[in-house]
């Protein structure tokens, strides 16, 4: 059986297709972190005083904090003084006014990644904000959205143009002192996306941000803030890639979602950061804090993530269910291959009455990958009749990988109901032989079994993304038959 497990493993050997580097001149600050660097970043962004003060408060807090040690991941300590905290592609003036002003090399980069930014070539129905290293290089369909009162722009622009909204909501879900990486982000974040959907407006297209780390020795610290006002609806997609490099690069993002009464936010991620090579050299450290708050009655926040990349993933997209009858959902597919490590899951905090949450997590481990689901369901005293359903499945490919499940359940209200189901399975030789004897190649057979395993999550993704996610899994399963 040993041999056949290895055979199955060779089928999932992946090739990273987004690993190229774009040759652009960049404007970067020197490596290292100090109050001066933070002032410099803030100055480059011409931020109002309140932003700088907020950053400095975070920085001072961060100096007193230590990196969390509880995750089931292992890596050498990060030297935070060797990281470049700000890097932006140089442009003619202070930022492109329209797509015509965007450096053609950058447009080409996104084309190569399969994300055409020229609007005429766009899939109808998706507006994109492209973030390259530390800055947003292009945002499409801005005008069309503006006509509905929807704000979709780089975070740095929101700070200039909508300071009141930023001031009101920034840090209201993930406070600057929240955790080591979120606090670091609060001090040095450079850009990201900002979305505001006004009362009663249903955003007519998918909003999407595409993150790309290009420069070496650079960290990416983006900050995304999405606010759906009463009765509003928005579906937001996020994608990410980075070049192949031997060094590890840090990506410490923060995403905050706020859904007011009757509002709904659907947030989908396809994360394909460079995972490192087979020996575990290089790759992105993806240490991300994502949290949403259902602030009013009947609000709903839904996270869907497909995590295939990164050397190490540490993220727990969570929902704070404050409003009565509010709903939180978390659908996740996490793949670890070669030496990848993932410790991911969610937190559902039930505060309001009749709040409901659903957690569906699918972990796939292959090679020597380590995949951990870590989830917390907390029902407070006030959360009368709260309900949670958790399903947590692990699929093992080969015999050198690992799957781990750490559910934390804390219930303080006797009327609550919390369910947890978990399974662990292997792709069996029987399944592969069955599919092969129907005419499918071994690769296609593995891909079919894996896609079937992930189906309940994939069907939560918006159409275009579901296709991309399936392709991504397909890609990562490409390889020679052993």
């Amino acid at each position: 059986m040993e041999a056949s497990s290895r055979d199955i493993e060779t089928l999932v050997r992946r090739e990273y297709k987004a690993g190229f580097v774009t040759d652009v001149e960049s404007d970067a600050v020197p490596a290292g972190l100090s109050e001066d660097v933070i002032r410099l970043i803030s100055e480059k962004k011409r931020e109002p005083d309140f932003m700088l003060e907020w950053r400095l408060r975070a920085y001072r807090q961060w100096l007193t904090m230590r990196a969390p040690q509880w995750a089931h991941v292992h890596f050498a300590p990060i030297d935070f003084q060797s990281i470049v905290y700000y890097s932006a592609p140089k442009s003619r003036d202070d930022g492109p006014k329209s797509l015509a002003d965007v450096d053609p090399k950058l447009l080409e980069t996104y084309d190569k990644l399969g994300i055409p930014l020229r609007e005429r070539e766009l899939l109808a129905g998706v507006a994109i904000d492209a973030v390259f290293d530390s800055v947003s290089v292009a945002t499409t369909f801005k005008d069309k959205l503006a006509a509905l009162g929807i704000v979709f722009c780089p975070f740095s622009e929101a700070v200039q143009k909508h300071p009141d909204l930023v001031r009101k909501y920034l840090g209201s879900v993930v406070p600057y002192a929240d955790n080591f990486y979120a606090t670091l982000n609060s001090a040095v974040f450079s850009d990201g996306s900002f979305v505001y959907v006004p009362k009663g407006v249903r955003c007519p297209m998918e909003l999407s941000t595409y993150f790309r780390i290009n420069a070496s020795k650079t960290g990416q610290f983006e900050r995304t803030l999405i606010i759906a006002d009463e009765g509003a609806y928005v579906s937001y997609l996020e994608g990410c890639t980075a070049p192949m490099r031997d060094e590890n690069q840090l990506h410490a993002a923060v995403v905050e979602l706020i859904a007011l009464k009757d509002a709904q936010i659907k947030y989908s991620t396809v994360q394909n950061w460079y995972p490192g090579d087979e020996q575990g050299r290089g790759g992105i450290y993806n240490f991300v804090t994502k949290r949403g708050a259902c602030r009013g009655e009947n609000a709903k926040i839904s996270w869907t993530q497909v995590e295939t990349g990164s050397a190490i993933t540490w993220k727990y997209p969570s929902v704070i269910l404050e409003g009565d009858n509010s709903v939180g959902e978390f659908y996740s597919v996490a793949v670890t291959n070669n030496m990848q490590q993932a410790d991911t899951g969610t937190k559902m905090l039930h505060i309001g009455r009749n709040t409901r949450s659903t957690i569906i997590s699918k972990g796939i481990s292959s090679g020597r990958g380590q995949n951990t689901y870590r989830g917390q369901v907390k029902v407070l005293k006030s959360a009368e009749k709260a309900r949670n359903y958790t399903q947590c499945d692990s699929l093992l490919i080969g015999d050198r990988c690992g799957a781990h499940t750490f559910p934390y359940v804390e219930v303080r209200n006797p009327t609550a109901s919390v369910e947890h189901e978990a399974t662990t399975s292997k792709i069996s030789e029987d399944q592969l032989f069955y599919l092969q004897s129907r005419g499918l190649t071994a690769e296609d057979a593995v891909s079919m079994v894996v896609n079937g395993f992930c189906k309940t999550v994939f069907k939560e993704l918006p159409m275009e993304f579901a296709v991309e996610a399936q392709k991504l899994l397909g890609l990562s399963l490409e390889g020679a038959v052993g």
Partner: protein
Amino acid sequence: MLTITDLHASCDGKEILRGIDLQINAGEVHAIMGPNGSGKSTLANVLAGRDRYQVTRGTVKYRDVDLLQMPPEGRARAGVFLAFQYPVEIPGVSNIYLLKAALNAVRKSRGEQELDAMDFLALVKDRMQLVEMKEELLYRSVNESFSGGEKKRREILQMAVLAPYLAILDETDSGLDIDALQVVAAGVNALRSPDRAFLLITHYQRLLDYVVPDVVHVLVGGRIVKSGDRALALELERTGYADLTPAPAPATMQDGR
């Protein structure tokens, strides 16, 4: 269609098939009967290309090619079909999705156009009538929460859609009630044709009441010990396998010649 010569195969170092000779012509239905552990399923799996079994001697010629040189998917594409004794479950993969992927893989390898969704659905619905299967089963995951009878019908449906030249049914009748058995048999009979051959592997002669074979073979101890017509199956039912001992091993070539 199929010529098996002196086929020996083993699993985990244990020899199971000990010199099978079998000739099946297009249009014929052959039944292989035998007691448990005689090698019936091994023969089916070896023909389908399962790598758990090692062929140690002998040849298998299928439509003028060396079957043993082909990977399992190659055999499927060349028109060999195995209906499994225990079809596996594949959660999240719907029957219709698998059927379409399988059919198009086969068609593509033959240089034929892949069927589009409409034509494909029409074909499947047509073939479903053969096995009296409910349409909703198409959209369920492969074999998940299928009853034994449903699983076997689904195997026959796959066979009907893929239209193989050589269909091997590995104990498709086991675990079926009489109604399901009749449905499966009717499906097989409907697919009988001059350019298609069947190899029915069965423990009981019951199936042969409904699918009448041209030739019946008795497999004992990894070797075919007796062949005959339908009457042989009926006789076996009366006398059992006990009287049939493996034929003496054919004289093997000695070393040092």
